[in-house]
């Protein structure tokens, strides 16, 4: 896609986001209050952070199914060691998740195994590990430590909490990394055309490891942050995270075939999803309708993209036949 195409694509997606926003904004007066915006931002943190990681693996042409389980393990680990302090526990959790992600990337890259298959296995294994570490129970934070968590609910400029600032930092850092560093460009290269990239001398293993380290670390960060903020972690949690993250990425224009997309798109996808979910919740829809809405939204995205691809393919075929003639 040329630069102009990319901009048009993003503009269309942003317009869709604004439409969803307006649909609910007219019906919900407290949508624009600082409290409403702060709640919206805080509610977006988990899916936002994890989506960036999933997006990076998708750009590399791979798919990490294990993010939900990894978020659960990391949440449980952070809770189990929370007595060393909130920040150290968070750090240990994220380092663990990053290490696990790096190993996944190493195995997938070195063996050339399909990442879907491999991460199905680790998805099951991490879920089991989370239950083992948590002794099959919800892990809660000691009551005397709960005041430490208040830091996370502070407000800056009226709408930003430390966790939503964390999310914005993640978007910024990963966005700059992907756009302006050599290692970031390598991720696009192996996603856009792996054999061409290899032929051009791009190593496959390094970007693969970076991509999976990124998705692992961010899944862990999301899981640990949310568990700490809630003061408890359940080993069976985060099971619908993959659906939300994949919807966010696809709605944000990350191509499943790899090589296309950026974090601005992910942000647009994220807020489209959040506007829809919070809007429906505020209008009184029961929580279980969320899955229905997200599923329906993703089906819609799949159908629209399917039609677009088929149209493009038809046009290309027509051009090709003209040139051959």
């Amino acid at each position, binding site marked *: 896609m040329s630069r102009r195409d990319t901009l048009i694509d993003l503009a269309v997606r942003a317009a869709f986001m604004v439409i969803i926003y307006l649909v609910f904004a007219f019906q919900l007066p407290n949508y624009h209050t600082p409290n409403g915006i702060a709640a919206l931002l805080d509610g977006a943190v988990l899916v936002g952070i994890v989506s960036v990681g999933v997006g990076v693996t998708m750009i590399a042409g791979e798919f990490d199914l294990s993010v939900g389980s990894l978020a659960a393990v990391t949440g449980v680990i952070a809770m189990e060691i929370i007595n060393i302090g909130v920040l150290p526990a968070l750090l240990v959790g994220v380092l663990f998740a990053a290490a696990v992600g790096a190993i996944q990337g190493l195995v997938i890259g070195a063996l050339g195994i399909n990442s879907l298959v491999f991460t199905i296995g680790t998805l*099951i294994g991490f879920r089991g590990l989370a239950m083992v570490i948590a002794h099959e129970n919800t892990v809660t934070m000691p009551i005397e430590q709960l005041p430490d968590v208040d830091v996370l609910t502070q407000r800056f400029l009226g709408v930003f909490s430390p966790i939503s600032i964390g999310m914005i930092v993640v978007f910024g850092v990963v966005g700059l990394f992907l756009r302006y560093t050599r290692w970031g460009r390598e991720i696009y290269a192996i996603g856009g055309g792996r054999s061409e990239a290899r032929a051009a001398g791009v190593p496959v293993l390094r970007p693969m490891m970076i991509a999976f380290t990124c998705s692992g670390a961010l899944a862990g960060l999301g899981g640990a942050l949310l568990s700490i903020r809630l003061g408890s972690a359940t080993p069976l949690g985060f099971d619908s995270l993959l659906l939300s993250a994949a919807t966010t990425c696809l709605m944000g224009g990350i191509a499943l075939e790899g090589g296309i997309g950026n974090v601005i798109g992910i942000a647009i996808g994220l807020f489209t999803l959040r506007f829809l979910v919070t809007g429906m919740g505020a209008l009184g829809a029961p929580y279980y*309708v969320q899955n229905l809405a997200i*599923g329906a939204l993703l*089906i819609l995205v799949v159908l629209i993209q399917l039609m677009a691809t088929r149209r493009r393919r038809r046009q290309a075929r027509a051009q090709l036949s003209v040139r051959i003639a």
Partner: protein
Amino acid sequence: MKSLRIVADLVQTGPPEELDPQIASNRRRQATAALVVALIVLLIVAGLTTPSFLTFENLLVVIRNASVTGIVALGMSYVTISGNLFALSAEELSILSACIFGWLMRANFGLSLSLVVTLLLSGGGGAVQGGIIALGADPIITTLAFGGFFRGLASVVSQNQNILLGSDAAEWLGTGRPLGVPTQSWAFIILTLVAWFVLQRTRFGRLLLLSGANRVAGTASGLRIGQAALLGLTLLGFCCGITGIFAAAQFGQAVANLFQGLNFDVIAAILVGGIALRGGQGSPIQAALGAVFISVLQNFMLLHDFTSGWRTTVVGILVVVATCGFHLLQRRRA
């Protein structure tokens, strides 16, 4: 430029892979044989070390557990063999079927009408997904989307509460034991044989295998590749419907949190069974054996007081080792 890229794409997919039927069937036999040997070893070890393992009652429990996963795994094996990876919506479609069946029974539609309508709807749920995939959508994302949709729908149908069937007309279906074997297990055994026969001996089976083996060659020789996805997912839908009906009948109620983790149990059965994910090879027998193997292993660990966390972890490790192992074997042969 665009036209150039298409030519490049065509070149990149390369000449059609050689599919020597002899080699393919040898591979399948080897994978099946390895699994049977592993299963026998596991049975002997479990029997020798665990006194309560080789009792008739316990073996019935093992078989019944394997039946739920196994029936869905049969349908899933068709999806995988036809080259469409796997579906992440089997669990959700089974839940939805159970809720629909429960709802129909409660509304006094009668057993036979409820059965027919539930099966038609579950088959339809599979067919819609199959149709979209047949048009070229990604199977994983499509089924992930429909999974969320079906789960939400099941909650809406059941109002997120228990649906009591309200009559014992369906009770025999869930708890009956013709000749001492649970109905679910009869269904599993019969469906395994039917699935095997259809894949090996019918035109439809050939279509599935060839579509999975090589898309480009299949299309070039006039096969309708899309049909394979459509039929595979429709059959998976029926299997989910059957499982859902059995569960609702067995417990006399349906609820939207049935079948926890079924998707991954089923995919684990496929992978442990050694069905190649790129499609074109494998047989439903392998999926069935994979389901039985995992069920025996789970039961063995249960009798040795493994917590559910450890059991899940071991199954995860087994899947990782099995997939890496099969992958390396294939790479070496190639």
